[in-house]
């Protein structure tokens, strides 16, 4: 709270204007919008008083786009033109989607995206997300009474770059300015962190409609640091519905269901699941497309047995997140439950058993993320004085980023687990005399060889003034912004020529890929090191060959015939070995080491063979510089 000072009459500062900013939880099943009003974050309701907006979009025959619960109702009648759970498709390739798992027609769109064929044309997940965001934006402007400065939109913690970019694109399409993308668990922690202001390590267990995320956050002096994240991007409340649908269908095997019933079955399962969170038994009823009404009695106990594997699937990521952060379950100061699916008693019980303590549930699990995003949006919009509950958010980059250097080696510029936003620079130089351009290949990964890392981008710095190898100074700067998007720039220090690239990878890394890349880096540490040393020896040898070659051309007259033969033989030996390196690509660390020893031996021999020649060249140079000049001239 700001403190006031006394002003001269009529000179009191006008209070600042409130800038309208919202936090949006763009969920798989439901979306919400919240804003800080009168110092308190509140979820904004639509005209009918509903806060949850089902993330369902229906494309009507008259060209209307219907979003929300109306669309969810229409999903029963017209599932092919109604898109739900589009967030599962965002930034994904057709191969990632199990056939028959969705009631509408999926088709490839663009090089690596998917689209849904509707009567309004092929709709990409970005289009659908934009339709949902547009409705939320309009709702917020109506409720707050003015245009929005911007929005903070939440995404699952391990959405990759492509998915984050797609979310930003959707917001832009909906006419919203994205102040920042925020990880959902971090948003939930903000919602709780500010209210309770307690420091420590917290686990955020977010079981939403379509995604499961677990994050470990350390809250210290108002700073959130994400220690680790884990999860399953294909696990959520929807799977509990699907499980219940399978159980329901198996009760009466004689009755057949087809694609037209999928939406109705899901709706019936959702209703049954929701009432089982409070009641102990419910009658699940579903009408088939031909009007046949099927009913089944389901008890909470039966539901818990059926969904036990799903609940257990959440515990694996929970353990892995703890292991990554190096924390034992009892080292957690609290656990926060987020996502409507955490209302299920069996989920709460599982979390309580795992941590040995009851999780926090004070904030509505559906709203926590949106409320946290609203708080963040309020700050980013500048409605909070600097230093007043100044909340800093730190995330980490999951894998090292670097560039390719000679010999196909990866040189790390930003090591993994560096907190973002960050910027790091490193200087590189040219390899060949007179080199005027440099290809910058941006790679991501922990391995020593570029071929084992993931390629992110390539660009070329041109206009380097011709200089001898190693004289140019090229500064390569890596910058990761708060959203985790990378930009790389390279500039030559003497002339200032520079070039720049924004990395928006066409496909991203899922959590499993990251984990797998890390594992392979650890498993192959030994062979990587051997490979790196061999490559370095190769680069050295090649540089020596180039240098000798250049010298031979320049000062052939200084060579003794016998010497020339010896040098050419030695060069041939080195060149032969380089050839072996190039095509043999010795796979075993031992073979690589042998090859490297050979290389070293032959390059040493070449060095020895050229020593006298080099000395003569040096003398000749010195003579050329000194001859015909007086001592005074030289001394000055």
């Amino acid at each position, binding site marked *: 709270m700001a403190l*006031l000072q006394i002003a*001269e*009459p009529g000179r009191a500062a*006008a209070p*600042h204007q409130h800038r309208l900013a919202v936090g949006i939880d763009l969920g798989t099943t439901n979306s919400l919008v919240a804003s800080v009003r*009168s*110092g308190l974050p509140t979820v904004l309701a639509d005209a009918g008083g509903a806060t949850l907006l089902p993330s369902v979009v229906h494309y009507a025959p008259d060209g209307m786009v219907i979003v929300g619960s109306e669309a969810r109702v229409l999903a029963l009648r017209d599932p092919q033109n109604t898109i739900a759970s589009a967030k599962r498709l965002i930034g994904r390739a057709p191969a990632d989607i199990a056939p028959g798992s969705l009631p509408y027609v999926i088709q490839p769109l663009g090089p690596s995206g998917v689209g849904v064929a509707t009567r309004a044309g092929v709709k990409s997940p970005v289009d659908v997300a934009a339709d949902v965001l547009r409705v939320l934006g309009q709702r917020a402007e109506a409720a707050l009474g003015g245009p929005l400065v911007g929005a903070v939109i939440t995404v699952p913690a391990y959405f990759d770059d492509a998915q984050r970019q797609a979310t930003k694109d959707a917001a832009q399409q909906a006419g919203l300015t994205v102040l920042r993308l925020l990880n959902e668990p971090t948003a939930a922690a903000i919602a709780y962190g500010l209210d309770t202001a307690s420091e420590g390590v917290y686990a955020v267990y977010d079981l939403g409609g379509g995604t499961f995320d677990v994050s470990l956050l350390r809250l210290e002096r108002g700073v959130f640091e994400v220690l680790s994240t884990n999860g399953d991007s294909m696990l959520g409340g929807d799977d509990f519905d699907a499980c219940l649908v399978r159980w329901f269908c198996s009760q009466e095997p004689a009755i057949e269901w087809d694609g037209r019933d999928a939406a109705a079955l899901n709706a019936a399962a959702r209703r049954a699941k929701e009432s089982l969170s409070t009641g102990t038994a419910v009658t699940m009823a579903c009408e088939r497309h031909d009007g046949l009404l099927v009913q089944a009695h389901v008890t909470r106990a039966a539901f818990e047995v059926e969904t036990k594997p799903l609940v257990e699937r959440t515990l694996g990521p929970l353990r892995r997140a703890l292991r990554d952060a190096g924390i034992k379950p009892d080292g957690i100061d609290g656990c926060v439950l987020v996502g409507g699916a955490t209302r299920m008693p069996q989920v709460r019980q599982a979390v309580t058993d795992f941590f040995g303590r009851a999780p926090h549930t004070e904030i509505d699990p559906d709203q926590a993320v949106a409320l946290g995003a609203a708080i963040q949006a309020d700050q980013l919009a500048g409605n909070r004085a600097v230093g007043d509950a100044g909340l800093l958010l730190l995330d980490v980059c999951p894998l090292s980023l670097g560039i390719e250097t000679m010999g196909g080696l990866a040189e790390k510029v930003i090591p993994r687990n560096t907190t973002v936003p960050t910027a790091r620079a490193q200087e590189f130089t040219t390899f060949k005399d007179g080199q005027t351009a440099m290809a910058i290949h941006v790679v991501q990964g922990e391995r020593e060889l570029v071929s084992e890392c993931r390629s992110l981008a390539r660009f070329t710095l041109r206009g380097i003034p011709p200089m001898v190898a190693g004289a140019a100074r090229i500064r390569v700067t890596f910058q990761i912004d708060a959203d985790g998007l990378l930009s790389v720039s390279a500039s030559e220090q003497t002339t200032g020529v520079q070039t720049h690239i924004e990395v928006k990878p066409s496909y991203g890394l899922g959590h499993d890929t990251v984990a797998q890349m890390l594992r392979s880096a650890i498993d192959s540490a030994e062979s990587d090191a051997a490979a790196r040393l061999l490559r370095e020896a190769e680069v050295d040898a090649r540089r020596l060959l180039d240098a000798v070659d250049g010298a031979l051309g320049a000062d052939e007259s200084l060579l003794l015939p016998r010497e020339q033969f010896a040098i050419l033989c030695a060069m041939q030996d080195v060149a032969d070995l380089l050839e072996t390196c190039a095509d043999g690509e010795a796979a075993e660390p031992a073979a690589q080491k042998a090859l490297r020893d050979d290389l070293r031996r032959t390059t040493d021999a070449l060095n020895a063979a050229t020593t006298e020649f080099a000395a003569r060249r040096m003398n000749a140079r010195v003579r050329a510089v000194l001859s015909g000049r007086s001592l005074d001239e030289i001394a000055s």
Partner: protein
Amino acid sequence: MSVSVTPKAARQIRKALDQRGGGFGLRVAIKTSGCSGYAYALEFAETPSPDDLQFESEGVHLLVDAKSLPLVDGTELDWVREGLNEGFKFNNPNATANCGCGESFAV
């Protein structure tokens, strides 16, 4: 109907008036248009105007215009130190919510 100050606040107000070289007292005013609807303003006062209500608390003259009074009735003005900052703080029983920056409030 009253507005009061704490002894600490009174000391600061007197100090501020001395440094300024005099004045009648302190005007507590309410301005509209802040984050939460209303915002406080503190000004030195030279002379009371006809719509002003006068209060005396801890030996300090306080002026509140009639329009603002319902919004600040019962308010106690305190002087607090928060970290490196120090300044006046309103303990206003009428405020139902304060905005994050504390400059404004709602009733």
